[in-house]
């Protein structure tokens, strides 16, 4: 039997980056932009935070006074800035220049991963250590400060044993859901993603909504990368360490049928599925089973796609103009 008290916190830890990524991508997709660059954006969000805190930690080592506020603020701002730039790049290419969204997104993923590994490698060289990774232990202690200390009861372990970024992810997802469903801004954003000509004729600035949604979405997704490094991985950056979680986040968007509030639980479910193989005894003879378990999240997504397509309910379909660029005077 799986030890749930040990398993659930790990699943949550795996799920939070996915939650950031999927919330960001849902907001982006609701504006009609299919940003396949999210995996790259999450890499950039992570490495930008790492770069910021790396130099701050070096400054401390060289005698600067350690400030808890700066310990958190510097990586956060760097991460947000890095992913914002990625968002602006994507927006400029697809909204202003009306480039193909799929091509742009895939290029940005390739670029983002490469960008992360390049600067990660450079920092590893700078740090002059023998291991192929950077450890930002000081920063990490601030990011992974929990409400209760480690050895509490099961309740504390399951609900209170995470750093602030984990709770922030849930808050952002719930707020995003509320805004999308209940406010005028959300209504306008959905209209832009469903039918930009309609939104435009109704006096909504399509370009503005697309830009803001895409950039905001990227910034939220970037925080997922930062959380993974600073909290889950205890401040250790190693190249390609973030893996394919970005794609999983995009799969989650479909799985949750574009609902950030559903994503709160779904991301934890996916996080759990992602590491399930560690908790199922397979023995050393059958390592291949582990790889099969790793496929589960993607298979679940495919099943959800089949089910939602078969039920064919209009509300559960992707935004109608997803992936299309908009030009008012198109004839």
């Amino acid at each position, binding site marked *: 039997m799986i030890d749930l008290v040990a398993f659930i916190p790990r699943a949550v830890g795996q799920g939070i980056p996915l939650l950031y990524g999927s919330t960001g991508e849902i907001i982006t997709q609701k504006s009609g932009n299919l940003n396949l660059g999210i995996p790259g954006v999450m890499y950039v969000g992570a490495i930008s935070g790492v770069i910021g805190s790396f130099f701050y930690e070096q400054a401390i080592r060289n005698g600067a006074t350690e400030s808890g506020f700066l310990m958190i603020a510097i990586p956060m701002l760097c991460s947000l800035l890095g992913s914002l730039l990625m968002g602006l790049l994507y927006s400029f290419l697809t909204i202003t220049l009306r480039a193909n969204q799929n091509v742009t997104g895939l290029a940005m993923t390739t670029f983002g991963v490469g960008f992360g590994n390049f600067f990660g490698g450079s920092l590893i060289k700078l740090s002059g250590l023998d291991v192929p990774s950077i450890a930002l232990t000081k920063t990490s202690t601030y990011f992974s400060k929990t409400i209760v200390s480690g050895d509490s009861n099961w309740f504390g372990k399951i609900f209170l044993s995470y750093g602030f970024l984990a709770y922030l992810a849930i808050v952002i997802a719930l707020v995003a859901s509320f805004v999308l469903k*209940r406010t*005028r801004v959300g*209504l306008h954003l959905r*209209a832009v993603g469903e039918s930009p000509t*309609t939104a435009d*004729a*109704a*006096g*909504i600035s399509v370009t503005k909504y697309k830009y803001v949604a895409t950039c905001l979405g990227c910034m939220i997704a970037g925080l997922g990368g930062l959380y993974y490094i600073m909290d889950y991985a205890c401040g250790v950056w190693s190249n390609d360490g973030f893996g394919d979680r970005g794609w999983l986040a995009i799969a989650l968007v479909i799985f949750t049928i574009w609902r950030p509030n559903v994503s709160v639980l779904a991301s934890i479910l996916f996080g759990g599925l992602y590491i399930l193989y560690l908790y199922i005894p397979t023995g050393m003879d059958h390592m291949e089973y582990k790889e099969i378990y790793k496929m589960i999240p993607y298979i679940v997504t495919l099943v959800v796609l089949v089910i939602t397509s078969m039920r064919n309910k209009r509300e559960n379909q992707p935004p109608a103009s997803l992936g299309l660029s908009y030009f008012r*005077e198109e004839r």
Partner: protein
Amino acid sequence: MDKKQAAVSLRNVTKTFGSVVANSKVNLDIYKGEILALLGENGSGKTTLMNMLSGIYFPDEGQIFINGKEEVIRSPRDAYSLGIGMVHQHFKLVDVLTAAENIILGMEGKLNLKAATAKIADICNRYGFEVDPNRKIYDMSVSEKQTVEIVKVLYRGADILILDEPTAVLTPQETEKLFNVLRNMRDDGKAIVIITHKMHEVESLSDRVAVLRRGEYVGDMITADTTAQEMTDMMVGHSVTLNIERPDPVNPKPRIEVKNLTVRNEDGIVKLDDVSFTANSGEILGIAGISGCGQKELLEAIAGLQPAEAGSISYIDDNGEHDELLGKDPLKIAAMGVTLSFVPEDRLGMGLVGNMDLTDNMMLRSFRRGKTVFTDRKAPKHLAEDVVRDLEVVTPGITTPVRRLSGGNVQKVLVGREIASAPTVLLTAYAVRGLDINSSYTIYDLINQQKKAGVAVVFVGEDLDVLLEISDKILVLCGGKVSGIVDGRTTDKNTVGMMMTRVGGGKLSD
């Protein structure tokens, strides 16, 4: 005339798209408390002109005065704040939102659907609309969607209302309802502009007509003082005959025999119920019926696109031999040596590929010919050139993607291609939908030429006047059943209209 107040005055308005001049130095006045019909052929710049008022396009030159004051309209938002609202030909509604959500879209302030719903109910009562604010758009019929569009415009307090071909998709009853609402609004002091191609609508609804020709303003007339003939001549620039010829069929022989055809659609609903008829060569068989009564399924079943539950469709060749068409796809039907041409309702969806140019679209019919892996582009290119020349297609060239052409020209390309394959059976659905009067008559002529050449024509139409003028026989469908087959020469509009609403055409009980 002097006491009328101009709500909108356009002065020397010019708009170009690349090298195409859509509007050139247009001067037009729109008055309060008046319904103005804007006439013009396809591509004469009516919609472009109105789009400049509604803020979709921005004029290159010229001035726009609203209530006597010069204004610059940069966006739809500006237009709304000036009280201009437009109901577009292609509805601008978000399918997955409710009517109320669509109506308040783009407005500022806190989201309060309850208050909005109350205000919508108020507007509906005032003008006699029926709208359920909480219904989703995708659940609505075309006329309901249109009502939502009009309520949307009124909700924002528009007093200058522009409607672009509002009746193209409405039944006669729905059209009459709409016209009553528009008359109410006119009496309420609103300025109304309606773009339409249907002359009898212009005559029954409008107070004044203004005519555009090739982007230029030709003139205006008081509707009561003019005739359809005069308006058409003004639109086209030369005299046109408004009569459709109907030559007597020469040597008609049965060509398509449909027996007891029953078709269910994907949702299991019976769309055709025990339909039997014969289409003769050299005759035009008109199909009348309220939209959605099985016309589409009938044509698609003959063309090999729609599986049937029961019945048979036989093709009878010149020697009297019967071939079953049912259960065969278009390729197999062609392989049997049956040349069947289909001009579907959805031109850019089923008939042509919007992003491909004229030559490539011509190739859709011929690319399988030839012996090598390479396609033959020469013949289709010549065909495209012939079609452009013979049917007077207005296009920058044969390498232009067809979606850039106006509706009438798209239809000419499609009909031109279908006719070029020298068919023995021609199926057309709403061949002139959205086409101006001149293009419509070109299409009628083409169909008549085919008839004279001995083709069996099946003509699905929505305009009863036209159906009665062009068809030799009229098959009336009602809810998927054959309501009756009448002779086009002896029947009248009333009889057919009655048959459309009731099988057999008996008097309605109420």
